[in-house]
């Protein structure tokens, strides 16, 4: 007995040290979060440089009316099309057109409808578009169109339309590639440059472009200019190189030269509506910051619109060409393209992005659900629309309405807790896609089962889009995801149990045993077990993330829109963590929410800390941590090229914004322009 009673101190020392370390690191974490808003310092005084449409004031007066006019003409054209095809409503028209989605010029209608901002459900059309992609040998043109249309509708992953496959097959490829690159597919500044150069290389001596030969063609030139606009827009205003600027200038100069006396354009000797529409689209693709007024004024836009208006028939549609100076026979392509052009230009005039692909797409309010918020929001949206149409919309109101729509989105899905709602809506979408008008089950259980359910459903979407016949490889057993999470929990439990055993043994073999040590060990162990089993463990490849990916990459719903995000650790010769990428976000998402979702979705690790007052500090992304490369190094973010003024937790974005997370070596000085 006596021999066992020995002095022992270091064991206690060891444990207390462990605790002190634990505490220290904890406090460190807390301290860091509150004490290191270096971002603030960098950006002090820059607050308030918002991202509203610039130079709005001088534009307001003269444009409000013409924007309304353009919109009206668009609606007239749509009415004509509806009558012509016997559709009862715009939605009906859309669904009817789905029959030959991706194979006819009617795609342009879809583009136009999207750009007009109609509240429509595009899922059926999109699905049809995807179905078409399974054609054994799609023609290039079809693929381009599909890609463009899908982009306009807000879809991203369209099998077989990966723009990488389309490159170097002529000028159309180059143009589409420009679009695609701008849309956020596989790009970095390098790719941007390459794409630009590829297009610029095709420039002819007169500053224009052509499908073949040395004579520039108005349509092609306008098309290229649209791609330039897209590229410029996607990179933020900073990225315009001198070369690109001069190409744009030359392009518009040529278009100006080719503009007929009446303001219209001709192709192959015939004055027609489509060419003018293309030019108008080219104009709409650039914002006022992108090009100077001088360049913009090379083309007389008002005269162009006047000229194009002449192609409108009494029925509301547009003719390809005039017969004896009168528009008599409507043409589908002409009508659709003019609609696109008018819708885009109206959008430009209102200060919103005029580019075709950056459509604030409509949500899917058609489905009657038991979800109250959705209903309410639908109602309210309708009400809102009525209001908006009742009044003559001024610039300011447009702003308001966009803000309010954002606010509505809160109710629909963008609350912090609404990941589930989002899931549900995906679910619903899935139901519609696969079973048409089948009744929706509103399964909103919050348990693991529900998430597992959603998982399988989501896979159904995948299956139905990629292969209608069930693919056994993709199909996972029910609840498979939670099983692997449980495995991890068991592994962790085993590890902790092993550690407890070790500690107990250590105590047993040490010179003197004290009750306190045992209590301590068991207490720590119990706390660890509780922690492990209370924690939510998710595997990176698990469904929730795919869901997030679909969330990020799906059609924007009500109150949602798309932004471009990139994460660049800025190491020479290393690919950026995330190339610029279009993602769907809600108006309520902060920059940090977006970052968190995006990093989770694309398997990038994120280390951050939140302070008591709610400010967020991002310590590391993808393993690149602050202070890794010097005292002034760390992560900063820029919105449209402008360094942040506050922490990521308090900045929200607008439609079409370009968010860039960059690793700075010198307190942000090296990443800002």
């Amino acid at each position: 007995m006596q021999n066992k009673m020995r002095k022992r101190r270091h064991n206690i020392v060891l444990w207390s040290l462990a605790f002190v370390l634990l505490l220290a690191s904890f406090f460190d974490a807390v301290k860091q979060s509150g004490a290191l808003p270096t971002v603030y310092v960098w950006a002090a005084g820059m607050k308030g440089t918002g991202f509203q449409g610039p130079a709005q004031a001088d534009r307001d007066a003269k444009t409000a009316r013409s924007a309304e006019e353009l919109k009206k003409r668009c609606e007239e054209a749509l009415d004509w099309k509806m009558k012509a095809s016997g559709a009862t409503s715009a939605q009906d028209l859309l669904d009817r057109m789905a029959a030959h989605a991706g194979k006819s010029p009617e795609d342009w209608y879809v583009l136009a409808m999207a750009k007009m901002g109609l509240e429509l459900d595009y899922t059926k059309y999109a699905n049809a578009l995807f179905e078409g992609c399974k054609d054994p040998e799609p023609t290039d043109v079809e693929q381009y169109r599909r890609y463009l249309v899908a982009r306009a509708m807000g879809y991203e992953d369209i099998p077989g339309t990966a723009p990488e496959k389309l490159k170097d097959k002529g000028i159309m490829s180059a143009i589409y590639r420009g679009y695609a690159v701008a849309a956020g597919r596989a790009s970095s500044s390098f790719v941007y440059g390459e794409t630009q150069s590829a297009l610029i290389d095709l420039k002819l001596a007169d500053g224009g472009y052509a499908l073949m030969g040395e004579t520039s063609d108005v349509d092609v030139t306008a098309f290229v200019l649209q791609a330039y606009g897209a590229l410029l827009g996607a990179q933020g205003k900073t990225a315009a190189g001198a070369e690109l600027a001069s190409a744009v200038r030359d392009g518009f100069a040529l278009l100006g030269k080719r503009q007929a006396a009446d303001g219209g354009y001709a192709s192959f000797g015939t004055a027609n509506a489509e060419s003018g529409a293309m030019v108008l689209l080219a104009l709409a693709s650039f914002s006022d910051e992108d090009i100077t007024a001088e360049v913009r004024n090379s083309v007389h836009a008002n005269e162009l619109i006047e000229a194009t208006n002449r192609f409108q028939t009494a029925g509301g549609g547009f003719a390809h060409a005039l017969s004896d100076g009168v528009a008599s026979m409507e043409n589908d392509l002409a009508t659709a393209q003019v609609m696109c052009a008018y819708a885009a230009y109206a959008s430009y005039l209102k200060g919103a992005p005029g580019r075709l692909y950056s459509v604030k797409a409509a949500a899917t309010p058609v489905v009657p659900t038991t979800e109250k918020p959705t209903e309410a929001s639908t109602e309210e949206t309708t009400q809102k629309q009525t209001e908006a149409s009742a009044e003559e919309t001024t610039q300011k109101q447009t702003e308001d309405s966009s803000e309010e729509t954002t606010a509505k989105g809160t109710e629909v899905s963008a609350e912090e807790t609404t990941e589930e709602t989002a899931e549900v809506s995906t679910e619903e979408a899935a139901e519609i896609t696969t079973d048409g008008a089948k009744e929706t089950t509103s399964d909103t259980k919050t348990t693991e089962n529900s998430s597992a359910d959603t998982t399988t459903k989501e896979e159904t979407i995948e299956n139905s889009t990629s292969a209608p016949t069930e693919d056994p490889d993709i199909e996972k057993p029910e609840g498979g995801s939670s099983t692997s999470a449980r495995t991890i929990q068991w592994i962790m439990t085993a590890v902790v149990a092993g550690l407890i055993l070790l500690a107990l043994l250590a105590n047993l073999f040490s010179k003197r045993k004290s009750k306190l040590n045992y209590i301590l060990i068991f207490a720590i162990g119990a706390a660890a077990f509780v922690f492990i089993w209370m924690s939510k463990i998710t595997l990176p490849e698990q469904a929730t993330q795919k869901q997030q990916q679909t969330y990020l990459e799906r059609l924007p719903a009500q109150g949602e829109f798309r932004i471009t995000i990139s994460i660049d650790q800025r190491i020479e010769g290393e690919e950026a963590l995330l190339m610029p990428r279009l993602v769907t976000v809600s108006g309520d998402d902060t920059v940090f929410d977006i970052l968190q979702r995006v990093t989770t979705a694309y398997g990038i690790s994120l280390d951050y800390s939140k302070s008591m007052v709610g400010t967020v500090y991002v310590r590391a992304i993808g393993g690149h941590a602050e202070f890794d490369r010097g005292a002034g190094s760390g992560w900063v973010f820029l919105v449209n090229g402008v360094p942040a003024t506050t922490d990521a937790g308090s900045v929200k974005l607008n439609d079409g914004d370009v968010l860039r997370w960059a690793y700075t070596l010198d307190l942000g000085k090296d990443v800002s322009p």
Partner: protein
Amino acid sequence: MRVYLHSRTWFIYFVMVIVILMTFWHPVVLLISLESGLVWWKILKRRLTLGHVLGATALLGFLTVINPIISANGATILFYLNGRAYTAEALVYGFLFASVMVCALLWSVILSEVMTTDRWLCVCGRRFSRTGLVLTMVFRFFPLFSKQWHKIREGQEALGGTPVGWRETFSLTKRELLCMLTWSLEHGFVTADAMLARGYGSAKRTYFNRENYGAASVLVALAVIGAFAAILTAAIGGGMESQIYPYVRIHMDGAKDILGFTAYFLLCHLPMISCKVLREERRMRS
């Protein structure tokens, strides 16, 4: 062989070992530190029990598992824990951190064993003789203080008035603290008187240096500094490099690595030639 080393040599030695241990989070450096630490442990005749080994392992495992919860840094995500990434790199970092801690613990024991107050005094030297004096008084006072507190505890308990409930316990503890304060003051007065009685403050204090630099002390100090310089050269040249974030990567750079590690190995082991003297001193102290 009886080799006597000067306190400052020891000081330089420990500073360099610990600096290298703390700055190079390199597996080989850790291994060398561990090995030489254990050899020192043996030399100083400390017992290495199974309890030590198991305890250190438990600590190691504990810190390793904990670190990814605290830090979500690192590129390889194993899984998400409550929405935060649990990364492989953070695990490795935790393990390295824990290993460094264990090695540091080991070395701190060795340090406290070798760097006795006498040696600290000598290191402080003439320039810091006042600091040195305060140091020795503090070194003496701490054990006295804890002893006294223990006695007060026991005395109160012995009186038969074991406190009941946390309220009483708290008030007793509070009074004990006050009592300790009074005792410390009282102690301080007497000590101050004793110091005055022995001429403190009557002249400019000198410093009793008991140590001389022998050839061995100088040589070992030079060798230690040389090894350190060699390690620095190797490190600056890109050797002995390991990276944890964002990916674990151990750069191998043959010649420089070998130079650095050999130098560190020598650095750690060289002063062991003085083990006989250390053991003698230990015997004399108690």
